[in-house]
């Protein structure tokens, strides 16, 4: 041990009572910091892992259309395949449909608002609910039963609110994707205590049953929730990859008019796109104005000649759908055009607003490649869906959706969101809580450190002759200063370590209590207990910050001590 260190340590031990008192104050401050920090981490962890990740998924592929609040992915199989192909199997835990809708439920003489949530569980995963519920009555196994009409698991709070028991019926009215209102009877098969308050208003039902209720076709899906092994590390990374891989192609559907093969290509319904197309397409017959309108249909000169079509003629276009056999649609030729581009071949050029609804409902078996992304015409042609730009946070996401809902286009939209963007407000809450805690603790520490400074000044006054002696013997000013700084650092560091240890003990004790709360507190409880999550890096950072503050605070009195004149110091008598 160096001389300066040894002197500092011995001096620290020398004034036991005074330093013990100060140490207790610092340790207490550190304990509060650890407890508060762990509490805010734990709270956010509960909100993220128990609420956000289930309500939102680590990563979501969200499909929307028009101004509907329903999420809708028309070709689930295709999107799931893209997800599975682009997320490493070791990082991908599962892909679930986010099936849920708010409705009005009526029990035995009582009514309440409920959220019907579809959770697809296989029979071999029947213990799934044990993680979230404590079964009070009924049997989770009946969740898979076909003997009941829409079997549901109900929280005890909701069962009380609707005045229902196991095997009672709940009548429900719920909106469907089609815009109609669905009425159904649900059978209570289990009543359970929810692990957090958000689950109180949820009625859980098998996913396929909820899809049926809400009017989704089997091949359709609500937004897809991707659960990752390590979302913190991989969610944004995979979101960016999926965003790249989900770039849509141009709408080009191979079909037939009569016996002739043709390709249906859609153009975008906005002025800029139409301008670009007008430069490449010459209307040779028909009504040019009508042709560029919302329901406009144009046939290439080559195709018109082949089929003997004239402007104003009606014809049937048919194509092979993916799930519903052959689909046929009647069109009227608004114009015949000529083009030296690929559009000049056997192409049926249709305004996107005429075709999106048809293609959404009757998904083509295949979309053909028509133009490369770098083709000048590419931006003028409509795509299978609109891929929304990635949002930085929940505000940006909300703004984006708000703008999109104003857009009256019938084109479906896809969006890739991670919970860190979608639930960024909750994550900000953690930052705000930490900041508040840190500020409170810093104020506490500044008060404590004023105590440190005063103590140090007192100590220096008491040791003035000693300072004179060691300076006379030959200790440099810098070393004298360091003796006092190090003494403060020792005191602060040891107190902080004791504070952290005590904080951990307090966390364990507080975490062991069970609260029977159904109020606001229950939001942050898990199984009735407060959740604390130690954040070692954050604590280490705070610890270092406090050491720096202690060092800076001790510096000035220590420098004063070092600058004392040796001869004056030696003359000093208490």
């Amino acid at each position, binding site marked *: 041990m160096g001389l300066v260190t040894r*002197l500092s340590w011995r001096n620290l031990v*020398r004034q036991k009572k005074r330093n013990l008192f100060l140490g207790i104050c610092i340790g207490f401050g550190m304990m509060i910091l650890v407890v508060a920090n762990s509490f805010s981490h734990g709270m956010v962890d509960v909100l993220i892992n128990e609420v956000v990740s289930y309500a939102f998924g680590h990563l979501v592929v969200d499909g929307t259309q028009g101004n509907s609040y329903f999420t809708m992915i028309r070709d689930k199989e295709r999107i799931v395949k893209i997800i599975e192909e682009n997320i490493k199997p070791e990082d991908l835990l599962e892909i679930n449909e986010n099936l849920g809708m708010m409705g009005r439920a009526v029990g035995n003489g009582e009514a309440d608002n409920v959220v019907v949530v579809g959770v697809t569980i296989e029979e071999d995963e029947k213990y799934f609910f044990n993680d979230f519920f404590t079964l009070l009555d009924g049997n989770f196994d009946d969740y898979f039963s076909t003997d009941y009409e829409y079997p549901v698991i109900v929280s005890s709070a909701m069962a009380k609110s609707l005045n229902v028991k196991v095997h009672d019926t709940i009548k429900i009215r719920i909106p469907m994707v089609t815009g109609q209102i669905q009425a159904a009877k649900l059978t209570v098969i289990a009543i359970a205590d929810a692990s957090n308050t958000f689950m109180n208003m949820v009625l859980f039902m098998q996913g396929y049953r909820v899809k049926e209720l809400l009017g989704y076709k089997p091949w359709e899906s609500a937004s897809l929730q991707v659960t990752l092994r390590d979302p913190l590390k991989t969610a944004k990374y995979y979101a960016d990859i999926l965003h790249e891989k989900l770039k849509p192609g141009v709408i080009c559907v191979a079909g037939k008019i009569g016996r002739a093969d043709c390709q249906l290509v859609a153009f975008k319904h906005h002025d800029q796109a139409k301008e670009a197309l007008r430069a490449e397409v010459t209307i040779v017959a028909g009504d040019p104005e009508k042709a560029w309108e919302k329901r406009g249909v144009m046939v290439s000169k080559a195709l018109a000649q082949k089929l003997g079509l004239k402007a104003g003629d009606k014809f049937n276009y048919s194509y092979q759908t993916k799930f519903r056999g052959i689909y046929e649609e009647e069109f009227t030729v608004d114009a015949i055009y000529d083009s030296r581009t690929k559009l000049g071949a056997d192409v049926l050029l249709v305004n996107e607003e005429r075709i999106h609804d048809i293609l959404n409902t009757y998904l083509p078996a295949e979309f053909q490649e028509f133009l490369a992304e770098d083709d000048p015409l590419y931006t003028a042609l409509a795509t299978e869906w609109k891929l929304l730009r990635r949002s930085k946070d929940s505000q940006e996401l909300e703004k984006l959706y708000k703008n999109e809902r104003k857009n009256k286009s019938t084109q479906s939209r896809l969006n890739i969101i991670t919970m860190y963007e979608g639930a960024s407000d909750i994550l900000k809450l953690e930052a705000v809580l930490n900041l508040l805690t840190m500020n409170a603790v810093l104020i506490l520490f500044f008060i404590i450190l004023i105590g440190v400074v005063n103590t140090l000044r007192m100590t220096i006054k008491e040791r003035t002759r*000693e300072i*004179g*002696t060691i300076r*006379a013997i*030959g200790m440099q000013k810098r070393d004298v200063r360091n003796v006092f700084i190090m003494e403060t650092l020792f005191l602060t560091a040891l107190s902080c370590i004791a504070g952290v240890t005590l904080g951990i003990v307090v966390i364990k004790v507080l975490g062991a209590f069970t609260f029977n709360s159904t109020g606001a507190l229950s939001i942050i409880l898990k199984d009735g207990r407060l959740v604390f999550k130690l954040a070692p890096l954050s604590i280490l950072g705070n610890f270092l910050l406090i050491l720096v503050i202690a060092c800076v605070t001790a510096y000035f009195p220590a420098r004063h001590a070092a600058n004392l*004149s040796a001869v004056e110091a030696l003359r000093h008598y208490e």
Partner: protein
Amino acid sequence: MNVIEVQGLKKDYPLGKTIVHALRGIDFSVEEGAFLSIVGPSGSGKTTLLNIIGCIDHPTAGRVRIHDQEISELNDKQITDLRLHRIGFIFQSFNLIPVLNVWENVEFPLLLMKDKRKEEIAARVERLIRAVGLLDYMAHKPAELSGGQRQRVAIARALVGNPDIVLADEPTANLDSETSESILKLMRELNEAERTTFIFSTHDPEVLKYAGKIVKIKDGMIVGQE
């Protein structure tokens, strides 16, 4: 060869609105290996003179040369180094570091030098503690020692760095006559054994019989040398 040369040394202190002339023009020199006593009544300027020679105080006027080095030309760091390597101090009130034991107090200047090996330090400390007769008290703290023992520790500490000069300000003032005699004998023995120059102040005539040379001082001026 002169180890110390003092010329025209003056020191004034402000005391309220008046100026106290502690030293009024001192000239003298000290030869290497001397055992010199500065004698004078209280307030005559003995301590001030020793402080200036020991480089812990600055003169108002005049020059002090130690081994031909003009002290006023040195900055604080160099002066601190000079004190560490060339000057040992023995104080009237011993001024040991209370949190360090006997061994550590004696070792203190050597550790400050930072260029000594562990073995060298241990050997030197042990030799000095043996020389002052405190081998059995090595682990004792100053509070556990008598006044005489504390002063012996102070002597060992002053000598451990092998300085050219040891300055002792009234080293026996807080000791009984028997202990004072033993301390002075010890200082004299070490002066002869180590060839270290000793300068000590006293106002006790009994102490003078041990001095090799005596400088008499009164009202800040030298009034005689023997």
